[in-house]
């Protein structure tokens, strides 16, 4: 069967839901005729026309504000913010408006909307177009946070995100767009909040998300040669966070390394590590390690950028230290 690229999976996932539900609409910058700057939304304008697929001005606040108002009044908008760094230009909507409106009004409204955005580094886009900011969204109660690692998960999680009656921030990692995988079955749906054990193992648990899933799997393969058996958990979502799967895995391995692309300071791995250090304290036979990005802006040159973000070598190093503990 032909492989599906991550990039194609995005358009397929959105198209699947737009076909199913006429209230699903899509807006953003250069998403229509241009098919998106990452060419991840090609064909949607042709299939669904300009009332459902709408190009916007460079007005990130208007994009998310409009998505919010539309979601409160019966539509299911999917809004694209081109690079996740630009979430900073409309952060008020993600931090103060969208996640709080239902709660503040005592449950009078629902906000079924999806904010899609290209996240992460490793492509030499420089400090303002390369950040992994899934932890920003994770820090705001009231947002669901999704970050798929495979093309098939893109389709299945997109379906769940669009059908969710809650606001979802959907992080598509730029470095994964070109990656390939088995195609998704028809009408594929992956429920939000279910982590996947993508490789079983006995000695050490690696918890990963999006771009760090292939990094963790690469490390697992390499460590296998040294006789270290590594279990890899793909969280898939930060909210809802499937700590049960993580804690069960740690119960088997007694050792945990969290692999995250956001910076160490304030990264989501801190929350995961904190929960395990509390609720899983007795399961642990060794310190918890976090392999995260160095606490600096992302530099431009390849060689420098590689030093900052998690790599197979850095993960292997952390695992070896735990295995030797």
């Amino acid at each position: 069967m032909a492989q599906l690229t991550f990039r194609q999976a995005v358009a397929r996932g959105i198209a699947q839901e737009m076909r199913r539900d006429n209230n699903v609409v899509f807006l953003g910058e250069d998403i229509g005729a241009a098919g998106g700057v990452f060419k991840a939304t090609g064909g949607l304008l042709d299939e669904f026309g300009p009332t459902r697929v709408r190009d916007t001005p460079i007005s990130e606040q208007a994009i998310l504000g409009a998505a919010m108002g539309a979601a409160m009044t019966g539509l299911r908008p999917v809004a694209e913010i081109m690079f996740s760094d630009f979430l900073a230009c409309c952060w008020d909507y993600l931090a103060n408006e969208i996640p709080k409106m239902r709660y503040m009004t005592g449950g009078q409204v629902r906000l079924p909307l999806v904010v899609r955005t290209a996240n992460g580094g490793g492509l030499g886009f420089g400090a303002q177009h390369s950040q992994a900011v899934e932890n920003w969204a994770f820090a705001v109660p009231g947002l669901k946070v999704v970050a798929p690692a495979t093309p098939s998960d893109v389709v299945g999680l997109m379906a769940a995100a669009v059908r969710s009656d809650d606001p979802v921030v959907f992080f598509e990692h730029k470095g994964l767009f070109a990656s390939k995988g088995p195609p998704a079955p028809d009408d594929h749906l992956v429920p939000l909040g279910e982590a996947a054990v993508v490789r079983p193992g006995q000695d050490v648990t690696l918890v990963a998300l999006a771009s760090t899933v292939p990094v963790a799997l690469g490390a697992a393969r390499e460590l296998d040669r040294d006789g270290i058996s590594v279990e890899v958990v793909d969280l898939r979502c930060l909210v809802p966070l499937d700590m049960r799967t993580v804690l069960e895995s740690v119960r088997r391995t007694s050792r945990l390394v969290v692999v995250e692309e956001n910076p160490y300071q304030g990264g989501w791995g801190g929350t995961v590590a904190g929960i395990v250090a509390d609720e899983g304290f007795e399961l642990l036979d060794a310190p918890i390690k976090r392999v995260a990005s160095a606490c600096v802006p992302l530099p431009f040159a390849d060689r420098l950028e590689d030093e900052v973000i998690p790599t197979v070598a850095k993960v292997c190093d952390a695992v070896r230290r735990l295995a030797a503990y």
Partner: protein
Amino acid sequence: FEKRAYDLFLQNLVKGTSHLSLGQEAIAAGFGVAMRPDDYTFATYRGHAHTLARGVPMTPVLAELLGRENGLMAGKGGSMHLTSVQHGVMGSYAIIGAHLPIACGAAWSAMYRDSGQVAVCFFGDGTTNIGAFHEALNFAVVWNLPVVFVCENNQYMEYTPISAVTAVKNPAADRASAYNLPSMLVDGNDPDEMYDAATSALAKARTGGGPTLIEASTYRHGGHSRADPGKYRPQGEVDAWLARDPLPAYRSRLLMFGVAEETLADIEHAAMEAVELATAEAKAGAVPSVDLVLADVWADGGSSWRN
């Protein structure tokens, strides 16, 4: 009602901030009468009058101000976030400017659903200097949305006169041309003028004519919020505006137009009684149950973020 709320503040029953719209009632009244029941209102923290003008009963509004469980949002939102979706009051927003794009979204939805609804968005003069204002107005025009933007120019942001921080004289109306947006400059203390402006802008939006910007000049009789006695304003200016208080002015006009003194007295009497009753009911409301804390983050009614 507003005076009663003010009394309650003085009695210190309402904690936190609260922002009255005494002196600015004519704007809400004019629109309240002109709007269709299913139209959308987007208001600010100064949204009491707009909420009542859409027919929301007084008791839940007062109870919300007091943080009681019989409040409009069960005490979870508070004075700055009055919302009653059932009456088309789609929220009161406390971050300056944020609701202008949101109103655009509701208007877009109305257009997409071909429902004929119009979104009306109220905001202050100070709001015209924030980025979201700019993005929303351009967006509304480019998408030809059924939205009416209403700037209540009460001459001040919190404590600073708007003229000290704004490059143009009429902070909203003088900017309409930057968006190719039809605009009107009206007397916000005259309910009839407000009603006429509202009616024409609503009709235009409803029939596909797109957005309108209305700037209504008015004045805040009290301070910005409970904490503010409003001392920074020159007394002459305050006196001049108090003399233009829309309530007595409108009363005189009604008398002149032949409405009987008796009829007006009856209305006033009924209003006072309603306020008394609502105050009593609000005060009698229970403190909200702690179960509410973890309710309604999500559409399923809960707030669980992990397992």
